[in-house]
């Protein structure tokens, strides 16, 4: 034990300055927000700091909690969510949690770059003065990395929002230490870190991942083989890679299947030629954005001190010139720096641009269409290393007092140039085109609304008003802060919601058109088709009238078609329903009238046939079929003629309408989880169309259940009890996740798309062995892959745990 304390004491003695700086850096995020304020909005959002427990419940499924429920896995958040959920039991305040997280990122990012430069330069150095200079140069590199504009700039706000900022150098450092020492603890620590931050190693994070890791690993191989002249620990690395794949199987496996599933978004992005060509066009139009000179003069964005921006490149070139004997490490870093300089700028001569353009023909490279943003972190990483190494060459030639003066001046320059970042002005900024700030103090009344929505017993979807141009929700806080981001209701309550135009596809254009015409009857019928049963109306004037005059409700879009102010919105809501079931402050929840409700699962009573036509946008698709015919018979569905021909006879499909005998069929259903529904059917003595109002996907399948569905506690009854919906089951883990493996599923050709988006099955008595009463299970079969992946991940984690414990015990025994 004494030996360990000696090691720690020696470590602190050597690196006290770096540790002191990192402690000081940890304080910086506490200046960004006032106590209680949190920034959790934006595209990615960081609701996991606010309510990780409820977020876990909705992240463990392949089906998105928004709109019509498209597929998109967010499994990669689960490890972070689990740890945060545990931490939340100790640290109740999301503000403290978020600030500590930011502090950790700043400090670890700094320390990792410091550690890398120290490791690269300090190898085989014993002279005390040189060691001190190396540490000073390493601190300068760390400072440069943390305070470079890519990390702190206003529009990127990378440091508080992107984990790659600290993960890149940390993983690089751990790999470097493993390769140079062959000690498995560095690799295992890296594996644990990667698991915890799985979202940074997922398909969603593919651009930053593929921008950094391939280059970083090639650098380490070249460094080890050609500079250190050592053998690479290939066996250990292979073992580490297998463990990595095993640990991440829970999110990589579904993503892998998605990649090779024809027609999926990921598959299109990687393999579709038309998409590749589209991205080349995007790349060409983006070429004007990056400025080559500004990449050299990194800190020039701060106009008052832009004259000093030459310091960094000047130190680099002067350092190389002054070095008597060439340093291979510096050369290697320099070459990687130039490579990334090219990748982040692209426009180095016309030949360079053509070469870059041709890279887009490599499957997957189109992820770098925003090359100037996606490569900038790896660029600044190598820029920092080069700066640190060359600063050492320069400092090593100076007398001690000049070393202090020079390095202090540079640190001062970094601090001054990043002052707006340090004091929080760049972080706690104003929301886009608004007078509100991003840091919000959550309104407890809104929290009671979330609780209420969670307690709603049935599976109806929710329309959010005021509706936005995109898929954002706006919630004002108790301070002058507002949340603008993907809907909190969808993510934290488990109820799917429509926050704006994009969520409403394929009825987006139709909703705006009908709203402008104030055609409430058709709007309500459209809500039925979308399974909207509730309206959440936020009447707070602070989220619509004055504070958000344009974004995200622009005058050219949302405000042009929807009510222009809260007063008009109130009238709009009153025309849709007067059935207010909950109110807390400005937040009201309304339920549509009984006659307007359509359940999530129902039997169609009438088929309205239309001819498919090409449409300009997926948001306008309903324009080709949605019409007044739907007013005649409730529970009507729209079916395109070509699909109709596949399930009914061509003669029948010549008609515009085909009535169905739905009222003699009784069903009761229950949501087990967002990927599984149990349905009990009775009286089905003739063919019928079973509609499931969820985004169409071939992986939704209907299984003929051999087990009887138990009688469920009733949540809602529709159409005089013809359709009965049971209480939602909210258990995360389904003990019978694989029960459908042994069950017979309905043939593929019975699965059709209706209403322009929804799943439906044309079920004939012969498909069900001529039974009239039977039990069905509707399941998203893609979810099974997640469970298999989770099993592999758990096994890998156990293996890693055992390996780490065994080697730790061996090390302690060896020491004793």
């Amino acid at each position, binding site marked *: 034990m004494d030996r360990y304390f000696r090691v720690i004491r020696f470590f602190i003695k050597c690196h006290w300055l770096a540790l002191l700086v990192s402690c000081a850096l940890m304080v910086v995020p506490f200046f960004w927000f006032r106590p209680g304020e949190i920034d959790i909005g934006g595209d990615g959002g960081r609701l996991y700091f606010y309510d990780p427990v409820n977020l876990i419940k909705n992240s463990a499924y392949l089906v998105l909690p928004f709109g019509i429920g498209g597929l998109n896995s967010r499994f990669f958040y689960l490890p972070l969510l689990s740890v945060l959920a545990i931490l939340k039991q100790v640290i109740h305040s999301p503000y403290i949690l978020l600030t500590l997280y930011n502090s950790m990122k700043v400090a670890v990012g700094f320390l990792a770059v410091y550690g890398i430069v120290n490791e690269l330069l300090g190898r085989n150095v014993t002279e005390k003065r040189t060691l001190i200079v190396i540490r000073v140069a390493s601190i300068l590199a760390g400072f440069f990395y943390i305070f470079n504009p890519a990390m702190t700039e206003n529009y990127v706000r990378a440091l508080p929002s992107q984990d790659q900022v600290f993960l890149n150098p940390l993983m690089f450092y751990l790999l470097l230490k493993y390769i140079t020492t062959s000690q498995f603890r560095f690799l295992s620590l890296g594996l644990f870190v990667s698991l915890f931050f799985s979202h940074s190693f997922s398909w969603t994070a593919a651009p930053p991942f593929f921008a950094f890791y391939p280059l970083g690993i090639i650098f380490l191989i070249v460094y080890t083989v050609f500079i250190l002249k050592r053998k690479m620990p290939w066996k250990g690395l292979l073992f580490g890679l297998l463990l990595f794949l095993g640990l991440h199987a829970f999110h990589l496996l579904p993503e892998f299947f998605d990649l090779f599933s024809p027609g999926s978004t990921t598959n299109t992005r990687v393999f579709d030629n038309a998409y590749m060509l589209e991205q080349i066009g995007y790349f060409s139009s983006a070429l004007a954005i990056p*400025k*080559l*000179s*500004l*990449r*050299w*003069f990194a800190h*020039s964005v701060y106009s008052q001190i*832009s*004259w000093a*921006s*030459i310091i960094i*490149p*000047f130190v680099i*070139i*002067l350092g*190389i*010139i002054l070095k008597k004997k*060439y340093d*291979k490490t510096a*050369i290697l870093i*320099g*070459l990687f720096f*130039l490579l990334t*300089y*090219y990748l982040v700028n692209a426009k*180095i*001569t*016309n*030949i360079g641009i053509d070469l870059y353009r041709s890279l887009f023909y490599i499957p997957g490279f189109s992820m770098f269409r925003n090359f100037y943003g996606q490569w900038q972190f790896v660029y600044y990483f190598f820029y920092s290393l080069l700066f640190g190494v060359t600063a050492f060459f320069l400092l090593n030639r100076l007398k001690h007092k000049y070393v202090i003066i020079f390095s202090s001046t540079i640190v001062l320059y970094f601090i001054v140039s990043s002052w707006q970042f340090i004091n929080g002005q760049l972080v706690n900024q104003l929301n886009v085109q608004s007078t509100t700030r991003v840091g919000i103090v959550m309104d407890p009344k809104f929290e009671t609304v979330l609780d209420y929505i969670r307690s709603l017993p049935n599976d109806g979807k929710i329309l959010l008003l005021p509706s936005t141009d995109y898929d954002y929700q706006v919630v004002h806080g108790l301070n002058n802060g507002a949340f603008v981001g993907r809907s909190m209701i969808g993510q934290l309550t488990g109820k799917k919601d429509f926050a704006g135009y994009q969520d409403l596809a394929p009825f987006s254009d139709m909703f705006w058109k009908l709203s402008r015409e104030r055609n409430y009857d058709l709007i309500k019928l459209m809500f039925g088709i979308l399974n909207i049963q509730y309206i959440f109306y936020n009447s707070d004037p602070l989220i619509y009238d004055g504070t958000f005059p344009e974004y995200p409700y622009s005058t050219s879009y949302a405000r042009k078609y929807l009510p222009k102010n809260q007063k008009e919105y109130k009238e709009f809501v009153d025309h849709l329903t007067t059935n207010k079931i909950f109110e807390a402050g400005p937040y009201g929840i309304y339920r549509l009238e009984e006659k307007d409700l359509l359940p999530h699962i129902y039997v169609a009573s009438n088929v309205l046939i239309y001819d498919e036509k090409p449409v300009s946008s997926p948001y306008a698709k309903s324009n080709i079929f949605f019409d007044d015919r739907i007013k005649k018979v409730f529970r009507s569905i729209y079916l395109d003629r070509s699909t109709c021909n596949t399930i009914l006879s061509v003669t029948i499909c010549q008609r515009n309408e085909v009535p169905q005998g739905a009222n003699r069929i009784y069903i009761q259903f229950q949501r087990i989880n967002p990927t599984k529904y149990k349905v009990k059917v009775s009286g089905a003595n003739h063919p019928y169309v079973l509609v499931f109002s969820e985004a169409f996907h071939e992986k939704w399948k209907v299984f003929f259940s051999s087990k009887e569905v138990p009688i469920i506690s009733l949540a809602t009854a529709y159409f005089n009890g013809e359709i009965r919906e049971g209480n939602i089951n909210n258990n995360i883990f389904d003990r019978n996740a694989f029960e459908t493996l042994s069950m017979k599923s309905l043939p593929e050709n019975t699965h059709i798309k209706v209403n322009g988006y929804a799943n439906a099955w044309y079920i004939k008595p012969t498909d069900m062995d001529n039974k009239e009463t039977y039990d069905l299970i509707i399941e998203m079969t893609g979810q099974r892959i997640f469970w298999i992946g989770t099993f592999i991940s758990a096994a890998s984690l156990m293996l890693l745990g055992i390996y780490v414990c065994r080697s730790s015990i061996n090390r302690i025994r060896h020491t004793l």
Partner: protein
Amino acid sequence: MRKKVFNVLQQGKQVILTTIFLGICADILFLKESSDIRIFTLLGIYIASIFIYKLSGRFTFILSLFVLIIMYIEFLLSGASENTEKAAVWLFFLMGVGLVQQLKE
């Protein structure tokens, strides 16, 4: 003949190197549009000079330092203008050449 040419080149070392440097300056400061032919011709001549005159990597980095200073002055005067951008391209190539030279040395 070959020896004669070599001798002439050796004697004209300063003239040739000065011409290259002035060529780079002219490309950055006076010629309006960026041209790949111009850049690669000048760069090709400079690389040939490295072999002929056995120029060191340090020399190339000193040249880079001058280009950096030109880029900096341009940047202060005109911001990220076309001239500044051209200087940045030259700095990129000269640093690349310098690093490769050092690697060989």
